[in-house]
């Protein structure tokens, strides 16, 4: 035991995923600290623990997703709570500065990081924070984290779920899904951009596709079209809008269904297609535009995912990534689109910790560090 203990990395335990838009941070808070340990705990470590666990917001932009906290969780033989924290990537310099101010470097901690920012900001971590990052491959972390988080139940409820009757407000229900045997699985990670992975086993996965039309595109277009400032605001607008005022539907062209090709009249024929007309541009609201942007991006991702699922012959598609955070609208659209276009063959699945799997995977990197 002693020897094993000796190999354990020293606290604090962090996993970090630095994406194009958001930094995702998971923090393991040990709750089995012995009195002896507490005695030895240096001041700076204590202050970090106190700071992270006693707040839910950090600065003006950092947020701890308390509803996702994994309580009483065992990791590397220690018991503790797993905390999930996020802040915008453009605030990363502030974070690094704070690490410097709190003498983080004196703790000799292993800081595992993934995402593009692990590479882009490596230099700044070293020079300003005096911290050496352990860089981990983004997709490795994603797959690792996803498979890790899924296995235990999440504080007694299901981690994985799907929507039943997604487009019927009265009958729509969120249903638990048992993902005990996850293979094969198509993983669609929607961050700023989109990566699509086919996972065949714990160590066997490949990136099959991706698209640049992702969460960043939704927020970017929305802020240009509506002047909104945040993802939440954009979603709020979208929830109130009507996309069919901006989009041209099949029935707008053919008066109904396009029988020759079996296309339903309600299907979107041309996203934003009505906006080529001046009078329709003048009649459309910001909410309508936000909604149309959301629908366009979501449907496109759904369609590409569907195609990949067909060519990889995989029926279960799990959508993750922060684009889905508080975005039930997109999740329902994806559920419906996948079901409709695959004639019920494919299933859209979602996970509670949607955007944090990369960071969890990075945290698990502590196991490999010698």
């Amino acid at each position: 035991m002693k020897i094993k203990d000796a190999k354990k990395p020293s606290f604090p335990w962090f996993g970090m995923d630095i994406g194009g838009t958001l930094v995702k941070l998971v923090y393991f808070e040990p709750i089995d600290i012995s009195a002896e340990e507490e005695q030895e705990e240096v001041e700076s470590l204590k202050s970090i623990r106190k700071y992270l666990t006693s707040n839910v917001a950090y600065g003006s932009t950092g947020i701890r997703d308390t509803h996702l906290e994994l309580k009483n969780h065992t990791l590397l033989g220690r018991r503790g709570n797993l905390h999930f924290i996020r802040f915008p990537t453009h605030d990363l310099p502030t974070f690094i500065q704070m690490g410097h101010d709190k003498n983080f470097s004196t703790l000799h901690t292993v800081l595992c990081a993934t995402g593009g920012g692990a590479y882009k900001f490596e230099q700044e971590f070293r020079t300003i924070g005096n911290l050496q990052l352990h860089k981990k491959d983004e997709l490795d972390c994603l797959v690792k984290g996803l498979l890790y988080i899924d296995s235990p139940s999440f504080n007694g409820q299901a981690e994985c779920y799907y929507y039943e009757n997604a487009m019927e407000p009265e009958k729509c229900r969120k249903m638990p899904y048992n993902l005990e045997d996850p293979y094969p699985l198509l993983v669609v990670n929607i961050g700023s951009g989109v990566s699509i992975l086919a996972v065949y086993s714990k160590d066997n996965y490949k990136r099959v596709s991706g698209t640049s039309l992702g969460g960043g595109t939704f927020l970017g277009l929305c802020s240009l079209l509506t002047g909104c400032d945040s993802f939440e605001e954009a979603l709020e607008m979208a929830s109130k809008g009507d996309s069919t005022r901006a989009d041209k539907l099949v029935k707008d062209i053919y008066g109904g269904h396009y029988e020759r090709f079996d296309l339903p009249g309600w299907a979107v024929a041309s996203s934003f297609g009505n906006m080529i007309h001046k009078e329709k541009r003048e009649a459309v609201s910001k909410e309508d535009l936000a909604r149309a942007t959301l629908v366009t991006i979501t449907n496109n991702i759904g369609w590409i995912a569907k195609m990949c699922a067909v060519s990889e012959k995989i029926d279960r598609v799990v959508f993750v990534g922060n684009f889905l955070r508080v975005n039930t609208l997109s999740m329902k659209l994806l559920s419906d689109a996948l079901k409709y276009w695959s004639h019920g063959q494919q299933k859209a699945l979602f996970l509670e910790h949607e955007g944090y799997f990369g960071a969890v995977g990075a945290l698990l990197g502590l196991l490999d560090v010698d």
Partner: protein
Amino acid sequence: MATCSRIGGGGHSMDKSITLPPDEIFRNLENAKRFAIDIGGSLTKLAYYSTVQHKVAKVRSFDHTGKETEDEPLYEISVQEEITARLHFIKFENAYIETCLDFVKDHLVNTETKVIKATGGGAHKFKDLLEKKLKLKVDKEDEMSCLIKGCNFVLKNIPHEAFVYVKHAEPEFRFQTTHPDIFPYLLINIGSGVSIVKVESEDKFERIGGSSIGGGTFWGLGALLTKTKRFDELLQLASRGQHTSVDMLVKDIYGGAYGSLGLTGDLIASSFGKSATADKEFSKEDMAKSLLHMISNDIGQLACLYARLHNLSRVYFGGFFIRGHPVTMHTITYSINFFTKGEVQALFLRHEGYLGAIGAFLKGAEEDNPNQYSWGENYAGSSGLMSVSPDMFPMQRTRSGTFDMLEMDRLERQLVNLPLLLDSSSYIPDTVDLTEDAMAREYWLSCFEEALDGVVKRAVVSQPDLQDARERAEKFRLKYRHKLQTLRHQPCAYGSLTVRSLLDTREHCLNEFNFPDPYSQIKQRENDLALRYFQKVVRSVEMLNWEDRQFALVKGLLAGNMFDWGAKAVSDVLETDPTFGFDEAKQQLQERPWLVDSYSKWIERLKGPPHKCALFFIDNSGIDIILGVFPLVRELLCRGTEVVLASNSGPALNDVTYNELQILTERIAAMDSVIHSGITKERLILVQSGSSSPCLDLSRLDKGLATLVRERHTDLVVIEGMGRAIHTNYYAVLRCESLKLAVIKNSWLAERLGGKIYSVVFKYEQPAK
């Protein structure tokens, strides 16, 4: 018609400037038989089919049963009226639809049709207007069916219809040779949305997918983002923008490339990703560019997923988003290359904008069985809407990347591949692609321009009795010169550019102005003269021993081939020196070893067993056919080889036509027993090639010829003359033995090939074992 003289309106759009008066736009309208209209979101395309009356030269043998006199000509030449069918295309902006319909109505004289086939999104909207204005019943046709039908039609009938687009390359358009088997293919139609259609046969196609992110998304979102209303202007904005200021690239996230996945730093990770985080103003240009990339990439990705899923490698792109716009052709091409790593090429179509109209027309013409005919582009007939005149805006034209729409003639005969081509799918008739070879292009364009005076003069002289000949000849001069100038500025204006297309364009233009056969009298005179020497030549050859005779026959054939009015160097000699004859020509010939010389191999072969059947593509009238070709034909017949003589169906320069050859053969048979018995025993057969060109396209030959070639088990193909063996077919590979021979009667070309004027090419090849 002044009110209608500028149908296209303002000059800010590149695809709609019309400065011609409408009676030149709506050509042959008075004889229009059928109409089809494709009304799109902003443009209307009209296809109509009318009969065209034009003059053709005919030859008819005199009755020679009586005594012959020295000064009676060999045969009679007459000019007759002939009616052929031609398909015309017009496009105009929807805003001018009423004016155009009024004009059409006023000029419909001979039509018997009661219906007009209509397709396109606007067909419904304008139905009442069409019926009211034209007094024709509107018969609506499904848009996608028309599109596919039109696509099949152009892929089958128009050589060099499809091309790949290579930005910054010279030329930007790489035309593809037509494959005899066009199916299966994928058609990606990018209109307001995207439809992905898999076409498996003439009648079988299926929409296998699509996307709502298409041209309407670019236009609609672009209008919202940039406050720019017109599609063309949005494209122009995009072509000036930098997407990297708006898009989040891989390097913006990684600081460099994402090496383990092979994602380069410049790759777009998130379209518009920077506008999500940065609080700054973006330029219209940059946003338009980012939008264009986003949409093109998305479409390219879907296209690839479908191509891969259905295992298809031929992917054609069309729709208003593409429509000849270099900007979108480039981004789509780039995207396809990226996603398929070069496995799939993005193909575009010259007649892309007219597929719907052509398809609708074909639907209406089904009772005429349009598919049983072959069609050909008429290089003279630009249907109305020419792009901006090159004299006015050469630069703009070059950049516009649009193609002029040529009329299409329904050909009398069905054209097929020569069954002897080794690989018909890789056969390219033309030896030099002048769109790629700028130096050769420069030379030939100048060469044809310099020869123009002579051609005009010849045309006038050929019709001494017709008062308007000079006026028509001048019109011909203007038209052809204009074509040459257009090609100088935009080599790809009519598809590919080759010596053949330049020659054919000249023939088509001459026909257009009713000069069906300017060389008819020259040919008559020379045929007549040569016939008198036929027996003497045969006798002189017969005296020789076998080996000397073979050489004399080949030399005679080559010397005969000197008499080519199409070659300026020769026509100058023939104009100034009337005594220049067969013997003089022999003296001018290069001595062996020739420039290309496989004569020894040929003679070795002749020592072996005779060929079963020789197919002989002949060239000029007069000395060439009579004193050059016939003595060799005679020798082949004597050896036990059957001979098929293939001549042009219609006139081109002084090339011997099928009708002329019939008369000549009859005359020779009357004085030569070998030829006579060959004809009566059907061991010497005359066929027409189906062509009226000084060159030869072995992939478009008369069906009857192809059948005969198969029946007779042809094992030798002889191709004679510069047009057929040098400008075309020099590199053609056949399944059987082939002999290509010509005298290079052009010093520039001779030098290029490493020789001098009157160098000899004697290229005998045997198929690889």
